[in-house]
């Protein structure tokens, strides 16, 4: 009978990584916005700042670089592909979320990569 030792190790590591991301991103994110992180095993991950029903930023990484940015609100969303450093984007979270709240999705996409 297998105890699935490695599956338990994988689960613990994934949980620790997600917790660490949420903890670090909290410094850049106004308190009223939720942060959720969905990480696959030591690989790529998707972070959601805010909620899709209102204003949100969604970032997807590959090999530790952000390769896809989605900014949106309840009326729609815009996508940008490229290679971005997470810290650079995180510094713009607050302003970007404010623009999204005001319905300025185009401006928000520009603001987050500036």
């Amino acid at each position, binding site marked *: 009978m*297998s*105890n*699935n*030792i*490695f599956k*338990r*190790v*994988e689960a*613990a*590591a*994934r*949980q*620790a*990584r997600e*917790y*660490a*991301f949420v903890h*670090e*991103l909290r410094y850049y994110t106004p308190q009223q916005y939720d942060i959720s992180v969905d*990480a696959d*095993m*030591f*690989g790529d991950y998707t972070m959601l700042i805010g909620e899709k029903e209102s204003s949100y930023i969604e970032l997807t*990484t590959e090999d*530790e670089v952000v390769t896809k940015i989605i900014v949106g609100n309840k009326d729609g969303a815009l996508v940008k592909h490229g290679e971005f450093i*997470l*810290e650079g984007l*995180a510094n713009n979270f607050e302003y970007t979320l404010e623009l999204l709240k005001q319905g300025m999705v185009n401006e928000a996409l520009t603001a987050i990569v500036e």
Partner: protein
Amino acid sequence: MIVEQALTMAEQTACSTLERLLRPYVPEQYPITVSLLDKLEFRIMVGDVTGVAVELETSHRADDIVWWVRMKATGKPNIGQSIRQQHLRVDDIAPNFAQVLYLLEQEQTNLALHALCAQPGVVILEPNKGNIKL
């Protein structure tokens, strides 16, 4: 830095979790040391190189299979073996640790190696002597 910190935390958690999960299989007097070689590829040492020790390396790419083992009995040279098998995982090996460490204490290194890997279909690769089918 955000990514690096998250990765470091995940790696530390993976190693400490593996140590904790192996502990019930290993008599209390033997330390367990786990290090990460690559993404979910571990080197696990049970015991201590100054006394008796069992060392394993796992390959995550091959679905967490143990592919290499090394053993040491006090006063004896190390024996290291690659093992080729179909389904030998840490789950299979862990229940054998206590017996293996006992055999190593008795300096029965070869018996210990077979006790560790005693699963149907396991082949210990011994290039100079021909393979041993267990």
